């Protein structure tokens, strides 16, 4: 028999303190019955011999200390998972909100998951083509990676995420894939945008949506990414699917974390965020990867908005220390009307070198990418210099780099929302841009590739054929 307590001593913010408890487990799930007989859920945050601190997911509003009753369910937060989740929409704590039936499920999983044994992890190395030049060429995404998008208020990160979802594919393969979308504190409008995008590409039956809206209790947000990832782990490692997990917006998640922390009167770390935020975020982001001998994978694409575009703010900062790189959106590119406004300079993909090169993309990929970085950085430096001393003060060489930077933004970074650029095309655009700067400045590229790929260098087909013909005729002659 599960005992019911009517001993709530204090209730404020997201927390209630229940006294005279016995046999309560740390982190177990709690049901709270309100006087109006509505039910709320919570989780034990701290427990002593005769008292339990409970965080209430739906907030404490309506709870009283006299009539509300508390039931401890004796288990930690479990989620029923099954293939019937595909194509369904759930709220932030995993209840269906699309009017469909409850999930039958195959099994129940603890939403906190367990850490993957480092010796079981497989090296992520499959190139994912997103069809976006700045990502594919310069910050390559590979299967099993966690690569966040660092955005800011008003920047088109949702559009970019939708485009990636629509276009992402592993070249030459046709495998089972699924998308798990965990939305935290998004507006109804944003949620609709994603839903419509998924419908348009008829991908909806491959998508599992978890929606915690901006007007839902903040505390639920702590659960949303965990149930999303539990679902993803089931699909990937039990069902062998390649799962792309999108979490938006992680900043809202961190705000909720801070709220709980301050309600618990913990010692705050930087900017009031709890000191354990790194560990907490890691328990989410680290649930990406591949496992040796299993076919599936989890690739994470979390989106977060940098408060005031500040990369050193604790949210992007802690994220960047855990994830394998970051895609940074730039406000100045956005103002210039460039979409997608990805600034390659602060962006990075740590697993890039594993996913590119001969057999995966193309032999010249790494060199081209390095050269683009170097040339664009140099061009942008010159741009800064021009602001001070004027364009006339630049040497011929410097002017060429300046021109390169401008053209690079226009022709390489910018592309249409519907344009799905294959990697070969992306690389070819890069080579065309290299014509702007002197060949001797292409220091990062192996001369062998310059010979082969730089336009004007390569012999046309006719020339090559002529050569071949002449060789053959020579052979014939010598035989005679």
């Amino acid at each position, binding site marked *: 028999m599960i005992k019911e307590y009517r001993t709530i001593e204090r209730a404020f913010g997201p927390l209630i303190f229940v006294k005279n408890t016995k046999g309560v487990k740390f982190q177990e799930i709690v049901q709270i019955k309100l006087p109006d007989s509505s039910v709320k859920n919570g989780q034990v945050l701290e427990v002593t011999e005769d008292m339990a601190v409970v965080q209430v997911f739906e907030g404490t509003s309506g709870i009283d200390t006299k009539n509300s009753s508390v039931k401890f369910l004796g288990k930690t937060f479990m989620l029923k998972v099954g293939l019937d989740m595909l194509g369904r929409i759930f709220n932030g704590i995993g209840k269906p909100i699309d009017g469909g039936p409850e999930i039958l499920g195959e099994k129940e999983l603890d939403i906190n998951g367990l850490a993957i044994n480092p010796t079981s992890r497989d090296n992520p190395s499959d190139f994912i083509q997103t069809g976006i030049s700045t990502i594919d060429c310069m910050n390559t995404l590979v299967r099993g990676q966690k690569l966040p998008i660092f955005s800011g208020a008003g920047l088109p990160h949702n559009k970019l995420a939708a485009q990636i979802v629509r276009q992402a594919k592993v070249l030459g393969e046709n495998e089972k894939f699924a998308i798990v979308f965990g939305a935290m504190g998004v507006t109804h409008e944003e949620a609709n945008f994603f839903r419509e995008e998924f419908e348009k590409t008829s991908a909806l039956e491959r998508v599992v949506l978890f929606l915690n809206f901006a007007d839902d209790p903040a505390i639920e947000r702590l659960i949303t990414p965990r149930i999303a990832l539990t679902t993803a782990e089931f699909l990937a490692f039990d069902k062998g699917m390649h799962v792309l997990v999108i979490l938006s917006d992680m900043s809202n998640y961190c705000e909720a974390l801070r709220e709980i922390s301050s309600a618990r009167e913990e010692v705050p770390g930087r900017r009031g965020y709890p000191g354990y935020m790194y*560990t907490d975020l890691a328990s989410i982001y*680290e649930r990406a990867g591949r496992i040796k001998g299993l076919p599936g994978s989890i690739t994470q694409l979390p989106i977060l908005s940098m408060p005031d575009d500040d990369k050193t703010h604790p949210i992007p900062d802690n994220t960047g220390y855990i994830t394998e790189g970051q895609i940074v959106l730039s406000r100045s590119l956005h103002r210039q009307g460039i979409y997608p406004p990805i600034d390659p300079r602060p962006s990075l993909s740590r697993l890039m070198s594993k996913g590119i090169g001969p057999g995966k993309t193309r032999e010249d990929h790494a060199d081209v990418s390095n050269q683009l970085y170097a040339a664009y950085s140099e061009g942008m430096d010159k741009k800064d210099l021009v602001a001070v001393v004027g364009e006339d003060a630049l040497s011929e060489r410097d002017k060429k780099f300046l021109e390169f930077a401008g053209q690079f933004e226009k022709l390489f970074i910018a592309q249409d929302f519907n344009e799905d650029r294959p990697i070969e095309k992306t690389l070819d655009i890069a080579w065309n841009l290299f014509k702007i700067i002197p060949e001797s400045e292409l220091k990062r590229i192996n001369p062998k590739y310059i010979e082969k790929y730089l336009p004007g260098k390569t012999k046309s087909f006719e020339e090559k054929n002529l050569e071949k013909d002449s060789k053959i005729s020579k052979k014939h002659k010598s035989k005679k």
Partner: protein
Amino acid sequence: MEMPIITKISGPVVEAKNIIGAKVNEVVKVGNEKLFGEIIRLEKDLATIQVYEETAGLMPGEPVECTGKPLSIELGPGLLGSIYDGVQRPLEVIREKSGNFIARGLTAPALSRNKKWHFKPTIKNGSIVRGGQVIGTVNETESIVHKILVPVKLNGKISDISEGDFSVNDVICKVDGVEVKLMQEWPAKQKRPYLEKLSPSELLVTGQRVVDFLFPVPKGGTASIPGPFGSGKTVMQHQLAKWADAEIIVYVGCGERGNEMTDVLTEFPRLKDPRTDKPLMNRTVLIANTSNMPVAAREASIYTGITIAEYYRDQGYNVALMADSTSRWAEALREVSSRLEEMPGEEGYPAYLGSRIAEFYERAGLVRTLNGDIGSISAIGAVSPPGGDFSEPVTQNTLRITKVFWALDAALSERRHFPSINWLSSYSLYVDEVGQWAEKNVSKEWPRARAKIMELLQKESQLLEIVQIVGPDALPQKDRILLEIARMIREDFLQQNAYNEIDTYCSLQKQLGMVKAILLFEEKAMSIDTITHEEIGRLDSMKRIARLKYVPNKEFDAELNYTMSLITKEFEEIARKEKNLKKEVG
């Protein structure tokens, strides 16, 4: 007597009562699942325990079991090539037991109890031995001979020693009647004794140009690598672990990415040690506590690593220990401290942060071991300052104790200048000692060449400030040439491609050769009065210098000679033309 039971659970911190006779730092088994924990505070019969595993599901009233032992590390043959979690559980074995995900309450001995090792005594029955003395050897891997030491506090007459095959738990001899096994235990948080500390001077050759040439760390030195995310800390640590010429490498992945540990795990067994031509894994011990593994075990991982390092040092080896990242370890300290409701110091870190960091780095160093050999630990710690702000407590406390500072710079990494060690803000306090060593062991020119390179880089930064204000045109030709040469130093010497087969490791001879070529170029360019920077930019020798780094070792000497003569020739040509011009004008 009442049984010890749990009274309170808050994250990784658990309180228990009825604990009698226990000591601080004693290991306890918590709850029905026997989770691994350590007592960190005692108050009469109340104990505060930090638990090294997930505590979800624990309940007040569950039993607590004291073991009477502090957190101890198993030391003996079988460490090399292993991968452990923060409290020395062998992850390979854990995987066999619980599958791909790490379950709770699992225990497994760190050293395999079944494997037999061939023990050869180096000492005879009846000899008098003291603690720390070598009594025999075991071939642990193809490249490392494991020396078996008398446990530290044991002295006396040896008996029953003989050659044979033993497992780590078998008795191999007796010292005054006390059994000695192949394996011994040592408390992780206590430093192992030695005879005396010596001042390090021999360079720890890493094959990384900016490190070896500009900011060297000697064998037994301490270094820190602070840098914001994405500045290349981890790649740097991996490079050092791969190429540093230490005999033993201990790599501690402390609260870092799982996929990066996988990288180490897949790459090290495949890579060959350039000196022994055996897999790098043969000399490596890995401690992997990824960021989502329990936070208290992360705190322990640093101690586990340094204790293993000390054990090999005591055998007379040069050990290099990499810790990536010490900030995560400090954060673990902070998290536990705040659960203990201690008074927070700066940024919420406990007030004893500085002394803990100092204690850790002080366990490194060059020592004379109890056996009378020379052994060393070089400790290299990555620091991850929040927001890249070096004024934060972990960076500052680390700088106070380490002698080498490699400042990673986001601005450099953004333009893909790797390793992105900033040459203006980094320093090494060992420059003089290592310089003297290099004079004797590499070349007399070493210290002077280093000073000259630093001078050029320094001048460049001053000139660049002027350029920012007035533009490059306003500079005199000599200064513009200097800018070109500084650019050569940066791009052709300091930049090094970790992913290029040849460039990933650069021998000291090659480093010096490259510098000599650049300095010759500089000397010649500066000796001609009317030369312009455009002119030198067209020279073939400049392009050849740029390609030197990709020249394989075998061909390097020939290529260097050719390049040097080309430099001389090309500048002579220019000088002659100039003379002619002057004559004509004259």
